[in-house]
């Protein structure tokens, strides 16, 4: 391409720029501005840090955030533990044909929609649900175990909705790994554990990192699973934002909380990247 961009180039770039501007830049800018606005004693909207101060002054808010972040990190780790064997099987063991069929199966829950899958879990986990019913029938338990409306059911729901986003990137990095790396390590006397920790995991690290970022972001910003599957104590930070907007109608506070969620979760990802020695540019290649 020459120095002069052609007419077609601009034609093709306009939808992208419009999308970025109208859907991302302007709403966020608007949200940012309104997050710094609060009513003064006269009831007028003026510039203020009050909304942000509210977050740090009220224990319930930042405690909710800490809990949300901790659970999100936990779910992300769990997603890795669950996804890695699946990804390894799909990327290295299964034949291409079998693998693509299984990936299709993994995608089916996404087609159904988040709300329906959540209600599916309610049916499964309820006191009179499928699992309890089965356990009672087999005689393993005498009375139903309470699983629904607890942190357990919430974690299950969050995991179920996000695990695929760990499977896919890890699988694609593993797919690109040459089998002879494993053979070479084996030839040099490495045990299965050493091969796994020194060769396979480091090789898959870019995929693991990008999977972790996606899963963490999906979980930390999830609303349905904590709301419908979690109990009274499973308060999620997104629910606080929802409350600000729709229960107390304090849009300015909601905007501030939204920004805090964005900033704090980004900070956690930045810290995690620093600690694991990964670079964002290398992730997902």
């Amino acid at each position: 391409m020459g120095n002069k961009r052609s007419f077609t180039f601009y034609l093709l770039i306009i939808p992208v720029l419009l999308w970025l501007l109208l859907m991302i830049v302007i709403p966020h800018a608007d949200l940012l501005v309104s997050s710094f606005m609060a009513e003064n004693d006269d009831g007028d909207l003026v510039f203020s840090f009050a909304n942000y101060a509210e977050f740090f002054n009220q224990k319930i808010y930042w405690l909710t955030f800490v809990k949300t972040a901790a659970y999100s990190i936990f779910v992300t780790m769990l997603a890795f533990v669950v996804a890695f064997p699946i990804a390894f099987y799909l990327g290295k063991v299964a034949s291409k044909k079998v693998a693509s069929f299984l990936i299709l199966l993994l995608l089916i829950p996404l087609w159904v929609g988040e709300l329906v899958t959540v209600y599916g879990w309610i049916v499964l986990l309820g006191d009179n649900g499928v699992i309890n019913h089965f356990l009672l029938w087999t005689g393993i338990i005498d009375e139903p175990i309470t699983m629904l409306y607890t942190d357990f059911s919430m974690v299950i729901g969050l995991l179920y909705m996000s695990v695929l986003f760990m499977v896919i990137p890890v699988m694609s990095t593993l797919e690109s790994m040459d089998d002879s790396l494993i053979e070479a390590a084996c030839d040099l006397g490495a045990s299965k554990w050493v091969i796994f920790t020194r060769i396979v995991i480091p090789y898959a690290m870019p995929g693991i990192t990008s999977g972790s970022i996606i899963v963490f972001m999906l979980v930390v910003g999830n609303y349905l699973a904590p709301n419908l599957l979690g109990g009274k104590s499973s308060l999620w930070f997104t629910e606080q934002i929802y409350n600000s907007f729709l229960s107390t109608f304090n849009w300015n506070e909601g905007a501030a909380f939204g920004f805090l969620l964005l900033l704090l979760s980004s900070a956690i990802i930045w810290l995690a990247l620093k600690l694991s020695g990964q670079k964002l540019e290398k992730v997902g290649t």
Partner: protein
Amino acid sequence: MTNILEVQNLSKHFDDFTAVRNVDFAVEEGGFFSILGSSGCGKTTLLRIIAGFQEASEGDVLIRGRSMNGIPPEKRPVNIVFQNLALFPMMNVRDNVAFGLKRQKLKKAEINLKVSEMLERVGLNGYDNKKVTDLSGGQRQRVAIARSLVMNPSILLLDEPLGALDRKLREHMKVELKLLQKEIGTTFVYITHDQSEALVMSDKVAVMRNGQFEQIDTPRNLYKYPQTAFVAGFVGDSNRFDLQSVNTETIVTQGGWSLQRSNQNLSRQDNHSANVSELFIRPEAFIINPAADLAGVDRFDVTIDTMLFDGSNTKLSTTVAGSNEELLISLQQNAQFDALSEGSTLNVGIHRDDLKCF
């Protein structure tokens, strides 16, 4: 010399075909043994069986007289240099080379010493902390070899390690590898499809075809005394002719070219001239303008059709006078033959012993 490696009547069957068929050979301690064959002839399978990555269907592999049946790759006293080298991309040069030693739980100081020695031996001192992805093809090559050699294996297996290099570098590495093997004295088993690599480096070469060994011999014998038509055609260049008839006196090709024969022409054991159907002559066996008193030489005229200039490998494409057989004749690039031109006639001789019939 004792045999360090013995492969006994080895076969490997897959579902619908046989990759290796009744292969039987021995390698002397300190030798450089090559297995030469085109792709898909089963040579990689054979190497992987020796390394322990695949199991033989029949037969046995013995290393220092000990059967390797059922012994996993990490327990065998062999190391392998893979075709694509399989360097660990997440580690630097030093960690790659030290990987195997660390698994042996050696002391840190001992590992460091051994790795440094090995890196120096392959000419990579100072590259310790470089990432393997930042190295050139030849350097990566040497890291792979160092990583295996540092384990001090009884046998080093090499699976076409020069395949990915460009021509110039390959020529260079060929010599370097040969010198390295001489220096350290480890037994090398080397597989390749490149006959030049096999001939230049090896003490013994096995030519493999369709899972079987056609001939095991020194490079020189392989070239001078091929045992089968395949070897004659595969190793070095050859003019090949279908034969019309052979008797005790003469050989006549399909194209009507008649040559005097000697009793050296039939390499086959049975020596039945009735079974013979092909004739091979090397382009470099022809003598241009042979002296009149040279004994045992058949003389004939050829017409030069084209000159195929390729430096030291230049050949004349010619037609034999009185027949329609085409001949490739090597032409040395010295001033003697500068006057030759296309269309002119040339007197050529061939020693009777240089005619190989199969």
